[in-house]
């Protein structure tokens, strides 16, 4: 009896550790937090976007429901928007880039584009996740930003790899528009 209680308690203790482990590996959350701290901005959650009546609200709500995307694996999409906020900080591109690299340790930086003239930045990082790949796309413009994380099949990733310049845009559009229903 004592033994089974001990086993149950151990199992409970182990189960309680699971969310902690997941939280530690939540690089998506870490990247969102980094943007918030670096640019002194706040990302909008789904309820806020829904209240604002933005088209993206429907998009995000549907993403969480997991309709099949053309590129990303269904249900794998995570999106954070930063709408109508100030990202103009031309002197700190290098600082932001190195902070991103530090947060995404263990991820491979596939492409990094900075355009101080247009005040735009795009970063794509990859990480193997079993038979899939986690892909993180961060796009920052003067008044808005978007963080997208998706799971891609190796076949889709291989196709996108041929044109890395367009990859970020393709993934972001795939993850945030819903015109195929």
């Amino acid at each position, binding site marked *: 009896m004592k033994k089974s209680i001990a086993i149950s308690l151990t199992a409970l203790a182990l189960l309680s550790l699971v969310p902690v482990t997941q939280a530690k590996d939540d690089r998506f959350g870490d990247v969102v937090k980094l943007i918030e701290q670096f640019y002194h901005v706040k990302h909008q959650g789904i309820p806020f976007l829904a209240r604002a009546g933005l088209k993206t609200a429907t998009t995000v709500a549907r993403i969480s429901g997991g309709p099949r995307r053309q590129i990303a694996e269904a249900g794998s999409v995570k999106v954070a928007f930063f709408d109508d906020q100030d990202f103009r900080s031309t*002197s700190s*591109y*290098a600082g932001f*880039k190195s902070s991103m690299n530090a947060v995404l340790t263990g991820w*491979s*930086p*596939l*492409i*990094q*584009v*900075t*355009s*101080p*003239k247009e005040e735009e930045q795009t970063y794509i990082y*990859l990480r*193997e996740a079993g038979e899939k790949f986690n892909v993180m796309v961060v796009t920052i413009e003067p008044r808005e930003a978007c963080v997208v994380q998706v799971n891609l099949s*190796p*076949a889709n*990733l*291989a*196709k996108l*790899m*041929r*044109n*890395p*310049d367009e990859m970020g845009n393709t993934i972001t559009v795939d993850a945030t528009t819903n015109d195929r229903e």
Partner: protein
Amino acid sequence: MKLLSRTLLKIASLKLAALAGLLVLGATATAMAQNPRIQTSQLDGLTAKASETVDVNIDESLMALTMKFLGNDDDEKKVKELVSGLKGIYVKSFEFESEGQYTEADLESIRSQLRNPAWSRIINARSKKDGSIEVYLMHTGSQISGLAVLATELKEITVINIVGPVDLEKLTQLEGEFGIPELGLGGTKPKRKN
């Protein structure tokens, strides 16, 4: 007497340590000399002056993935053949708003690596109007193990580094793929951004 033998022993062990150090240094230098991956981080300081910076890193695992998972239609088959055996494609480019934003010293950080005897320059074209393009190949034995391109214009620098068996013809066919810009090496005019 004891003191003398102790001193001799000390000298001998110091000599051994120095020899070991030299051997390690030599091995490191050889490894570096034969590494077809060139370092471009020395150019990162130009990011602040550039109007656009692009940094593409497709490493060995991603190249293998591309090889394995690209489809079998004619176009993708052709690309698979091109990238077969490649271990990495790395591209770094800077565009500037005005002239004089980079110096020869900036380029020297790349050229000094390519001056290594393992690299041989196969193209060195310079024009006041169109800028310059230098193409280097690294040979390991009779095999080509890497390629490097340093292309400069008054307001632009591009460094391309391909690791693996690649030649000029392959490079020409890879233009426009995997972040490699159109260099015009195949006789076509390079694409210019507006």
